């Protein structure tokens, strides 16, 4: 039914898809597996016409599909269920289905639409009431509305982009059942997921992407979770950057039963760990499993609702960001564009974000501009920041040089504890190498580091101890010498038994 051949797409210098082939037959569910940034979403966006490919051909139902937008893709019989739904909460199910539906008549036919919804709902066991308001429906039910919407628009091939990520276990069961019925009716499904169990349970064939290329394709019979996990992660690890074996020092950070609940939703289950000076604790995990919440609780951007944090003998559970900074806490958040940098401000201003209100950068509330410039000169030399001037806006710098500003500011003051969340995200190899080097240098100098990443490769390269975060829970950290790659991959992919086992 679908043939994609040699699909290539680059965003700037990043090659998101480098020649991907994908085949899907009618009445088949194909699983698309891969880590973040492996090119799954890009491939599906290309198929659905959200972005256009640099090279490659798409044939759908024996007709070429090129230069199309989402409207044409829908007309051709493609349906996409995004992670974030496109429903209007203040409207009923029927109204949402009619919204933007292609039709020749300018008149809406709510009664007919409602009866068609009832009919399809019965066929596929969707259990949807056409008159219900979207705002009253739980997440899983809204997803079914999206599915019925796609079906009523004549979708023969459905793309489900990580459909189970926000579902409860019974809802997942229900969704898998619906997918099976859709398949039995002769529709095809592309199922994007991180979760190996679900993929094995429902798919007939699995395509694994890694670094924008197909790492492997296999029938699901005979595939093992371990095999898939290894394929997803990459068999061969690159030679690690030279790291000195330093003896870890005393405990500097202790987190005890720290938990976070926001608006009744548990973001972090009670988390406990200790961190020693000169040690890197690497935390692996798929994005959105509580890493940001963990980092922000430690850095003081959110306050935990239970438990405590102790930094070098000081209870900092409720301390402000400024107090934590004073005590030697540094934080490199994942988002450079809006968080760790003010891109409209100059390089020297950005270097001063942390301590502009302390002498010698300011006295009595008045900024000492000459010292801003002096320190910026010194920092930019030490961290090799390439900029045509220190007064130019940070946004004009390359991503690597922007991250060097952040590094200079956060590492330059010799923090006792540093939290680095995906610090090499989106950087080219050279800049990546520089960042890693600096982090290792901080470790050698006795800094304690928490390194959060969804890339197993980075985690394995850097971590003295490695833990996995999944669903707001943190496994017990394992020493790098005794760690089992496959096991980590499985834990990342949501194998609860292992996390429970580790935490028990």
């Amino acid at each position, binding site marked *: 039914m679908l043939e994609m051949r040699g699909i290539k797409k680059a965003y700037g210098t990043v090659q998101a898809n480098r020649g991907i082939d994908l085949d899907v037959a009618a009445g088949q569910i194909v699983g698309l597996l891969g880590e973040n940034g492996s090119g799954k979403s890009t491939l599906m966006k290309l198929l659905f016409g959200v972005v256009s490919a640099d090279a490659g051909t798409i044939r759908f139902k024996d007709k070429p599909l090129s230069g199309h937008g989402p409207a044409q893709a829908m007309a051709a019989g493609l349906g996409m269920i995004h992670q974030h739904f496109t429903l209007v909460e203040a409207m009923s199910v029927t109204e949402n289905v009619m919204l933007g539906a292609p039709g020749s008549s300018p008149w809406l036919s709510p009664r007919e639409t409602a009866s068609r919804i009832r009919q399809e709902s019965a066929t596929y066991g969707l259990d949807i009431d056409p008159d219900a308001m979207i705002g009253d429906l739980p997440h899983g039910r809204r997803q079914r509305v999206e599915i019925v919407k796609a079906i009523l628009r004549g979708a023969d091939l459905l793309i489900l982009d990580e459909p189970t990520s926000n579902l409860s276990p019974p809802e997942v069961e229900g969704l898998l059942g619906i997918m099976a019925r859709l398949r039995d009716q002769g529709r095809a499904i592309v199922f994007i997921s991180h979760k190996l169990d679900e993929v094995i349970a429902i798919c007939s064939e699995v395509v694994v992407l890694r670094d924008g290329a197909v790492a492997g394709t296999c029938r699901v019979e005979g595939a093992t979770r371990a095999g898939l996990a290894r394929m997803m992660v990459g068999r061969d690890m690159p030679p690690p950057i030279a790291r000195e074996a330093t003896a870890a020092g005393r405990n500097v950070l202790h987190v005890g039963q720290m938990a976070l609940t926001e608006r009744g939703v548990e973001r972090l289950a009670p988390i406990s760990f200790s961190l020693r000076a000169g040690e890197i604790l690497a935390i692996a995990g798929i994005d959105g499993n509580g890493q940001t919440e963990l980092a922000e609780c430690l850095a003081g951007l959110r306050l935990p609702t239970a438990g405590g944090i102790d930094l070098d003998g000081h209870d900092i559970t409720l301390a402000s960001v400024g107090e934590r900074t004073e005590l030697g806490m540094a934080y490199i958040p994942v*988002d450079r564009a809006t968080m760790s940098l003010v891109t409209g401000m100059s390089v020297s201003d950005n270097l001063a974000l942390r301590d502009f209100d302390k002498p010698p950068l300011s006295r009595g509330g008045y900024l000492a501009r000459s010292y801003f410039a002096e320190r910026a000169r010194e920092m930019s030399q030490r961290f090799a920041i390439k900029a045509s001037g220190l007064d130019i806006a940070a946004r004009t710098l390359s991503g690597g040089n922007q991250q060097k500003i952040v590094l200079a500011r956060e590492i330059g003051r010799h923090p006792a504890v540093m939290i680095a969340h995906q610090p090499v995200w989106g950087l080219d190899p050279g800049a990546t190498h520089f960042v890693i080097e600096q982090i290792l240098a901080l470790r050698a100098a006795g800094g304690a580091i928490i390194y959060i990443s969804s890339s197993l490769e980075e985690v394995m390269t850097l971590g003295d101890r490695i833990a996995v975060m999944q669903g707001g829970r943190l496994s017990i950290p394992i020493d790098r010498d005794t760690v089992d790659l496959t096991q980590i991959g499985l834990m990342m992919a949501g194998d609860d038994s292992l996390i429970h086992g580790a935490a028990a």
Partner: protein
Amino acid sequence: MTILSNIDTVNNEPPPRKVTFMKAASVLRRLLAGTATRATLAVALALLVTAVLILISGKNPLLAYAALLKGAFGSIDRIAFGFNKSTPYILAGLGVALCFRANVINIGAEGQIAVGGIGATAVALSGLALPGLLLMPLALLAGVVCGAAWSGLAAFVSLKRGVHEVLCTLLLNFVGVLLVSEMLHGKLGEPGAGFPQSPLLPRAIWLPKLVAGTDLHIGIVLAVIATVACHILFWRTTFGFRLRIMGASRDAARYVGISSIRQTMRVMLIAGGLAGLAGGVEVLGVHYRLIEGFSAGFGFNAVGVALLASLNPLAVLPAGLFIGFLEAGALAMQREVGVPSSLVFVIQGLTMVFVLCALGLRGERSKV
């Protein structure tokens, strides 16, 4: 937020294949580089378009503009009038510019001016046995405090109850303006006057004249001082640094540990204080009494001045003078050429549109 994000455009470089286009664009870009150049260009374009409108109405645009110029600068008295008109726009515009820079959309200058005027009048008429030289600054201070209280109220409601600050400041405008009427029909009103106004203030506390024999009062000096103070505050102090971070990104402010709530409150108090000062200056320097509707249109013009200055405190001074003198000349234009003075609002409006377009043309947000 919306106003700021309108200025904000994505910095997309055009594809490299169209070299000639790029060249032309870069020349144009350099031409438009300076804020002053861009503002001047915008004014010129606005005058040009308005000239067409005047032509359509069957009048000679050159004559109209000559009358406008003469009306604005034709005599010492005219110039004094222009400066006096500009003063409240500059004062209130400074506060609006600071707020917008911090991404706090304060459009409540009008109400803050009105309440500031009430405060100044109340002190001026309080009958305190103080020499004029002491009572006058005290009255102005009362204006500042009342204006700040009014903006502080808006900020409090906005921060505490989560009501958008645009709504709070906008709605309090109506309350503030009507509060003036209420006062004039009650405590502060002049008994027996046919018009809702307060009694004439004692001559001793009128703002001193800058040039003897003209109406030019010292308000413009206060405006210049306030401009310089705001410039220093914004670019040279830790407070301004926090404002710049917060205005550029709330997430960055959170990351650095800046309390947006405290900053919002402070910048709103400053803006309200400046607007309240403008109200006091109007009362003590122009009308010598509180009059119903004395603040009409000032709030809108303050926003316009701030935008015209591309939110740069120092540029608020020329922007305020531009709007002030334009209005000062408008009546003369109507009188002498018969062009309706409302066309001046067309010029104002077009100038702002062109300034905002010029900001967009630069392809990036102004530096913070």
